[in-house]
């Protein structure tokens, strides 16, 4: 592999597995993380994302499979030789050391002389916008400041790979958003590879170059945020990222790339990005609530549309948008989100109405 060029390390996970006793935490993860990429492992708790990260760091030994950094297997290498920066969820700052000594810790282990250490620690504190905090102890800092110190400590020795395990989990929403932006900036400045673990899909969508959605110890889908949102491969991804409506249907035919499926007597056209489908196959149609419109009010889109008659069962005004609960002929529920505007007529509960949405927004999962 030609990986010497980039500042960031490339990481290859090959059928990585981990089980504790009889319990499988990671069931076989295969993933290639490119040099300089911001990759997020996203999944619910227990999906194996943290265990995967822990194995990359070297704190856990895989039961099976391989981890290669820049093409070299590191499975047999102890964590202190891997030269990977890591930020823990609870910061893991050493309480008996000052901020400067915490940040200088990795440098000290590498035998960096004291004068240079002091300079690098100062630079790192500048980078995380905490100049002059070196003499304090971690307990004297707020959660956000502690997180910044942890970050400074993880990058001060210029690792080519930075691992982060839900680093913003313990912070409040506003601070989290500020730090998300800072981490993006840091990633762009440093050019090193970031592997980020979170269960917060919004965080994953806004920060990542690519996201690997994990479920039950496996990667459910890997892709850019917009790919995962617009073209979910499977039911889990469609349900876990954002909100989706699901309708059961049966495949009836094909029109080029488009699959024609029958739902409750109506023909719905959909695209199937992941799998080959055959006629007669039972499938699930998935559509985002904000991609559906009331057919009578909307300007007709030139793109091919699906249509369905529904009854409004619930209408909620939520400020920037209105959220409607609709019932179809067979009793299934559909959620529709519409940007709110004084110019748009609000729908009443019990109203019968036709809805429409693009074929391109209809995914078979």
């Amino acid at each position, binding site marked *: 592999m030609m990986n010497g060029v980039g500042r960031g390390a490339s990481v290859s996970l090959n059928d990585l597995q981990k089980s504790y006793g009889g319990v499988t935490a990671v069931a076989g993860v295969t993933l290639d993380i490119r040099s300089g990429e911001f990759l997020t492992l996203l999944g619910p708790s227990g999906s194996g994302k943290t265990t995967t990260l822990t194995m990359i*760091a*070297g*704190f856990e030994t895989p039961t099976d499979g391989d981890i290669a950094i820049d093409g070299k297997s590191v499975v047999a290498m*102890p*964590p*202190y030789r*891997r*030269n*990977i*920066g*890591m930020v*823990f969820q*609870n910061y*893991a700052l*050493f*309480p*008996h050391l000052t901020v400067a000594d915490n940040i200088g*810790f*990795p440098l000290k*282990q*590498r035998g960096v002389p004291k004068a240079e250490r002091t300079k690098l620690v100062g630079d790192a504190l500048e980078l995380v916008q905490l100049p002059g905090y070196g003499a304090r102890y971690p307990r004297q800092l707020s959660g956000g400041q502690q997180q910044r110190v942890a970050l400074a*400590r*993880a990058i001060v*020795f210029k690792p080519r790979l930075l691992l982060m395990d839900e680093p913003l989990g313990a912070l409040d929403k506003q601070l989290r958003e500020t730090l998300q932006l800072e981490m993006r900036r840091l990633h762009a400045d440093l050019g090193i590879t970031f592997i980020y673990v979170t269960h917060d899909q919004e965080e994953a969508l806004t920060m990542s170059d690519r996201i690997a959605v994990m479920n039950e110890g496996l990667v459910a889908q890997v892709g850019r945020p917009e790919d995962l949102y617009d073209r979910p491969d499977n039911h889990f991804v469609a349900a876990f990222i954002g909100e989706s409506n699901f309708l059961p249907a049966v495949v009836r035919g094909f029109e080029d790339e488009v699959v024609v499926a029958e739902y409750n007597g109506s023909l719905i056209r959909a695209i199937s990005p992941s799998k080959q489908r055959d006629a007669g196959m039972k499938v699930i149609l998935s559509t985002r609530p904000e991609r559906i419109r009331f057919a009578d009010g909307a300007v007709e889109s030139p793109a091919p549309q699906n249509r369905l008659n529904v009854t409004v069962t619930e209408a909620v005004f939520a400020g920037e948008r209105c959220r409607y609960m609709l019932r179809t002929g067979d009793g299934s529920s559909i959620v529709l989100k519409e940007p709110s505007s004084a110019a748009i007529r609000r729908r009443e509960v019990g109203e019968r109405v036709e809805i429409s949405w693009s074929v391109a927004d209809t995914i078979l999962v």
Partner: protein
Amino acid sequence: MSEAVEIPSGTLTVTRPIGVQFSWRKAIPWLLTGPLLLFMLAFYAVPVVAMLLRSVNDPTWTLAHFHALASDTVFFKVFSNTLYTAFTVTIGALLFGYPLALALVRTPRWAPVILIMILLPFWTSVLVRSYAWMVLMGRHGLINEALLALGTIERPFRILNTPLATQIAMIHILLPYMVLPIANALRQIDPSLPRASSGLGATPWGTFRQITLPLSMSGVAAGMLLVFVLALGFYITPAMLGGPREITLSMLIDLQVDQLNWAYAATLSAVLLATTLAIIGVFYRLPGVSNAFRMGAR
């Protein structure tokens, strides 16, 4: 964005109880501890004070007994021997106890076994254990017989009635007081800290030296304090196992009581108590030690 809160105009009246009122809430701690306080006062504080008074009030108010100590070579020899024994026992218990505490915390599989090994003797009377050591260390005891049988030695050597015998037995008896506070301190170290250290490039030894050891120092100090203070007042074990010349302060006190030399015994007791309190005071000044006694608190 900030929200403007409008306060309705009007008078805000805060009512406070006037004067001191009887409050059940405040009385409950006193009621709960009251019986024990009375018991301790009657059967502990009063006798101790009465005993201490003898050192300055026998036959009349005088400091003569303390003055006499200053030129008492026997006292100095005994006092220094007591301090020396307590010191070596503390160091010995630390050297054996720290690895044991580490094993107790780090190997969950073996923790119950280790804990029972520590606590089982702990639940046995000191007298019984001291006799057991006599059986083991005697001239024809198990240790000598075993070494003779193995051919390691040709003649039984003397262990019993030497300072070494006292030290071995006291270390054994006091070990739990060292292990448990250290284990407690080790257990309170966030497991992500050694991980972080390792991830940041510290070798296992580096992690121990720079993270684990400093963070367990409060437990070490607490354990050393407990062992030292308890060792200072040890009586049965040095009396039974120690050499004829290795007299400790508590043995000397006992000797004086036997000879009805109450004032001298009381003076020696006062010195022992003062020494103990002084050591506790010094240890408590060490950073983190007072925390170590707050179990579970971080």
